[in-house]
């Protein structure tokens, strides 16, 4: 088996494992770590899928910036081990099985559908031969070209969005919620 394929499975499993850590770990820091692992594993998957730039961004932005932000605030808030960290919402007794069953059914259905139609994914593809791919695909140059020509507006727009988020954060941080008398 090709090493890449092996890694593909491994990364996939690690991503899932990381997610499970998030779901099950008692302490939020542990959970955040799990999430971080999951993200890094995903970065690996991206790399195998030839989305090199995204893989890099994943590591830098997601794992680097966002997760650090979250962990930082987790630390900042200095959350003691409290009830709500240890147990799950009461909903879990009804919601859990339903969700699990749904997921299983979902994936089972997915498999049966795709099993009945082996070449489905390659049929789906819009390129002539999806099995082949130019080496340069996913490179930073092509990616940047696409981003700054075809998706230039989106790029600009998202910058405005960031600006909006900054305003939003600032406005919230300036707030103080005083109790209303009749509350």
């Amino acid at each position: 088996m090709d090493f890449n394929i092996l890694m593909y499975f491994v990364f996939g499993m690690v991503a899932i494992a990381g997610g499970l850590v998030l779901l099950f770990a008692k302490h939020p820091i542990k959970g955040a770590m799990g999430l971080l692992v999951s993200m890094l594993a995903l970065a690996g998957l991206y790399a195998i899928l030839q989305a090199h730039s995204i893989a890099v961004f994943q590591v830098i932005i997601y794992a680097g910036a966002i997760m650090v932000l979250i962990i930082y605030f987790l630390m900042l808030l200095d959350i003691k081990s409290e009830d709500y960290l240890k147990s799950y919402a009461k909903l879990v007794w009804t919601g859990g099985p339903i969700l699990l069953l749904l997921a299983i059914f979902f994936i089972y259905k997915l498999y049966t559908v795709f099993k009945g139609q082996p070449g489905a994914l390659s049929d789906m593809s819009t390129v002539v031969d999806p099995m082949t791919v130019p080496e340069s695909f996913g490179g930073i140059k092509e990616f940047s070209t696409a981003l700054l020509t075809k998706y230039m507006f989106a790029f600009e727009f998202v910058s405005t969005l960031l600006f909006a988020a900054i305003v939003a954060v600032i406005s919230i941080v300036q707030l103080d919620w005083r109790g209303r008398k009749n509350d």
Partner: protein
Amino acid sequence: MNEISFNPTFLMGEISLIALIVILTLVEAFQRPIFAFFGTTDTRELDARNRQASRLASIGLMFVAVNYYIFGRATAGEEIILLHNSLKAGGGMYIGKLALMGAGILTVLMSSRYTLSQQIPAMDYYLLLCFSLLGALTLIAAENFLMIFLSLEMMSIPIYALVGLKRLSPRSGESAIKYLLLGGFSSGFLLLGISFLYGTTGSLVVSDVIGRLTFSTMDAASFLSGLGLIFVFIGLAFKVSMVPFHAWTPDVYEGAGTPITAFMSVAVKLAAFAVILKIFAGMDSFGEFDSVIGVIFMFFSLITVIYGNSVALVQKNVKRMLAYSSIAHAGYMGLALAPMAHKIQTVQAVLFYGIGYIAMNMLAFGVLVYLTHKDHYCETLDDLKGIARKAPGAAAMMTIAMFSLAGLPPAVGFVGKVQIFIQLLEGKMYVTAVIALLFSLVALYFYINVIVVMYMREPEKEIKEIGKQSLLPVWLSLALSVLVVILLGLIPSPLLQWSLKWAEVLF
């Protein structure tokens, strides 16, 4: 339809709005130094700054609207696709954008009083409002899923903050976090759906995607794209608050400042519905999958109508009641899609309804804003008791709003409802239509209950005088919306034509 790279006239609304945002930011940034330079200290008081900000914002937004009204009119004739399939512009979208701007202006107008009485930091508030409006504008123009997603977030993220901006109420924060978390959650669904659609068609452009989806043979691709459509529907259904994706609505509406509630309930809803229409109601049918989509629309819209109208019955808080009513209205709009007829009239009906809904809901919330001042927080039905005595004008407007929301002639709500039922009956969905009608009867009960409370009950405690603070803008907003409600009810033809044009653009 032309496809050109960039033509500023077609984006005049967005551009001038961004310009306004820049101006507002600059003013906010340099305000203190400037005033300090001139040695005045008064302006640092919240009230004065609030007033200044609201004046600036409302005049600015009016300028934006006028600007777009003048320049955009030229674009109304043709429709083009801009910026590599990012946006579609021109045609009847003009009216949609104007309607959204109108909603924005009304919100800004009524906010002036509200920011004062609730001591909300005004400049941030108006900036965020403008951002959100910008998101709404691009959302209805968005031509690919990327832009849809970005605009949706652009519209939502400022609102997450705006909901939390009510300084005096701790519930405001609760609402904000509720909206944010659930909004992110729903974005997840939307994106999953988008990714599946992308996966099966290889494109993010809406028209391409819809065009390439084939459900003639139920294969794996159909399976994925079907799921994709469903998840996209869920993501958008959250925004328009259809049951059971509605649950945030009442809580957030209650906690948010009333003008924000108003804005949310109309602009977000209309924009999100525009997207739903763009994706689901287009000329290209989904083949065999149409029936599934139709059933889904019927099912969810119907339970939305039932749930919204029922729970509104037991509400004591007017804002919550209006929240449930807005849920129910989403249901009515959704019902029009249930036949999945892929007709331009369906789209027209929903758009008309949405625009009419802007006017009437703005009116209802506007009255609440009008009646809210420092000492009298007007939210519950008890607060409204006997209000017709102190504020007959406001009570009259509330009455008009309620009748319009209930769908009684000759207000705009009636014309809207008629169109919806035309769609339903043309689609031969008789039972659905009858159920929907019955529940609009239930709705009538709680709408007229408001009127009963205002006109026919005695107030429990002496009602204080309505504060004079910043009344003019609120009056202006009320007058505008009541005018629209009545005029569109009496002379709906122009709007009907415009919404038809807009519907053409959406296809």
